[in-house]
């Protein structure tokens, strides 16, 4: 208590530390590079702090924050220009579920992952974002709607369109970055 009164504990810091994981991950899915993702998340937290008074009382904080994060990340991508590539990659040395697979199945899973990853890199930022919210971060439909600022009914259609495009790209029929 005394410590607190002397002002050495950061209140907003609690929020930042609580949400920086998902914020940085969200930014990374969009920017595809760690450095840009960290910068975008950092910017977002600073902006969110000063925008706290505009935060609607009673609204969920996380999607509100993610909206700012995604915005920052997308702006960074735009600033980098069309040619900027998304390096999105898989972390090394994470065997996770593969240990249960036969070597052949593991190889197949790895191949499938690479294919998906390549397709994701070519998707539009918005499509990658909606896919990440749903499958990477397991956001609820309501939370996605808040984060994407769309009606709840729109979430499903956005997601299925994003998946359809992912599928198309994966099948090598269309190159979106061309």
């Amino acid at each position, binding site marked *: 208590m005394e410590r607190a009164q002397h002002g050495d504990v950061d209140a907003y810091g609690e929020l930042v530390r609580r949400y920086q994981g998902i914020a940085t991950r969200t930014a990374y899915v969009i920017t595809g590079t760690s450095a840009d*993702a960290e910068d975008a998340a950092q910017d977002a937290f600073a902006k969110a702090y000063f925008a706290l008074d505009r935060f609607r009382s009673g609204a969920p904080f996380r999607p509100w924050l993610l909206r700012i994060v995604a915005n920052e990340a997308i702006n960074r991508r735009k600033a980098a220009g069309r040619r900027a590539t998304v390096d999105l990659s898989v972390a090394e040395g994470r065997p996770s579920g593969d240990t249960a697979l036969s070597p052949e199945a593991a190889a197949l899973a790895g191949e*499938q992952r690479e294919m998906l990853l390549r397709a994701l890199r070519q998707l539009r930022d918005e499509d990658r974002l909606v896919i990440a919210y749903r499958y990477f971060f397991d956001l609820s439909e309501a939370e996605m709607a808040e984060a994407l600022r769309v009606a709840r009914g729109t979430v499903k259609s956005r997601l299925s369109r994003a998946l359809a495009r992912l599928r198309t790209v994966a099948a090598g029929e269309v190159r979106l970055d061309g």
Partner: protein
Amino acid sequence: MASRMDDRTIELALTDLGGRLAYPSVDLWPAVRERIVAGRRPWWRGLLAARSPLVPVAATLLVILLLVLAVSPEARAKAAELLGLRGVQIIKVPETPTPTPSPTGTPLVPGGRVTLEEARAQAGFTVRVPAALGDPDEVTLEPVAGGARVTLVYRDRPDIPPSSQPGISALVVELGGRLDQNVMGKGIGPGTTLEQLTVNGGLGFWIAGQPHQVFYLDQRGQFQQETLRLAGNTLLWEQDGVTYRIEAQITKDAALRVAASFR
């Protein structure tokens, strides 16, 4: 093969992939904090300057007080240890967020009008009334995340100077503690002082000057913003798992006398 993946396979593969990406993991807070303190705010600086009468802001350090209430059932069991504004945190920031005037006009006293008996029956916590002020002229009850907020309105009281709000001399706000681990922050402006006290055996704070905002955040991440209604002094304390606060243009001693009369 790639194009033959069915929906379920793709979904599973995406879920799996999501757990494997090379996400950066750094602690952003030191850098964010530095930026907040340094006040590099390219686009809102103008807004601040234009709107806030509290400028000059640049050098003014304000204080945010963060109260972490731990009043879940488990916490109640450990009442003596856990109750009472445990975990108060204070940070100094360049300024508090500028309060934005609500376009629709925030009602001075939120919630529906109820009788004291109704408030007691519905609040879900012990609603106390300060005998020193007599019966409240109005009682409102408003549901908030995980609990309720009860506001007692005192109109003209001969011994209390009128507040900035016509017809109201004092407000008593009581927030129930069904929320687990709320985080409550209070923005304190320039010229405002904060003092830690013991009030009715519990930990409390006397904030003199012009505090204007309270934030709290529950476990689900629901951010709640509490606006202090009167631009006056505030006495805030926790007692039996309830946060009580008195807002009025009165001295600390007077506020403490009022607090001591809570029944």
